[in-house]
């Protein structure tokens, strides 16, 4: 793959970036739930 961040590749990085943010957010939510549970 051409690893540039420009052109159409920007959409690819954005998609994977949002995916990573989503996974981190869910894991953070799970951790918060663990804090609430006994």
């Amino acid at each position, binding site marked *: 793959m051409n690893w540039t961040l420009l052109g159409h590749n920007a959409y690819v990085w954005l*998609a994977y970036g949002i995916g990573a943010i989503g996974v981190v957010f869910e894991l953070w939510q799970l951790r918060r739930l663990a804090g609430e549970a*006994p």
Partner: protein
Amino acid sequence: MKINWLYYASPRNFDRLAARLVPYCAFAAALCAVCGLIVGLEIAPTDAVQGDAYRIIFIHVPAAWMSMLIYLVMAVYGLIELVLNVRLAGLLVRALAPTGTLFTVLALVSGSLWGRPTWGTYWVWDARLTSELILLFLYCGLLLLQGAIGPTRRGDRAGALLVVIGVVNIPIIYFSVQWWNTLHQGASISLSRGASMAPAMLAGLLLMTAAAWLYAIAVVLARARRLIAARREEPAAAAQTWSIHPIGAQS
């Protein structure tokens, strides 16, 4: 080996099983994701028509598959909750809903970002896209309904009912590209026709799909354990049940 399913219908026994499975699934998910990303982003060849933009497929397709699969699994548990009144089934619907919502959002956002360079637009009111958006609304409706009623059996049963009614949308999403003329392409992988892509692309896609499956199992089991622990702490509040009564009848 014979598995005693009724044994694992008990939240306490299920909790013990989940505790053992979560670390293995999480590790396997991370491993598959790393391998899938290496194959998908580096080893798989650049597409002759779409260039590197097609690499969104490695996140878009697993997310879209998981969004539908998780809803189907929720519907099965919802039906078990409504028909057999199994406490664990209602808890599993609750545990599955946030992960299903995440995958649906990812499928829609990554699809939108793929649509811009290939179709020239982020969004069209196409049958596949619209039905997937309706799936997101169903997930959001379920989360809001469960949140409004609270962590009780009444909330479990109301959520189960919504999930079972909404499952009609899943075949509509899946077959939309066959039933209607859509901008969205048809299936790239078929059990009857095989895959219409290069082997390295298929390998990356299957690895990322395995990662999404294992991640979902790990996260859902971990969330189910938290919910079981919370129910054990407040059994009286959670015991509030709910059933459908004719109008005017005493509940």
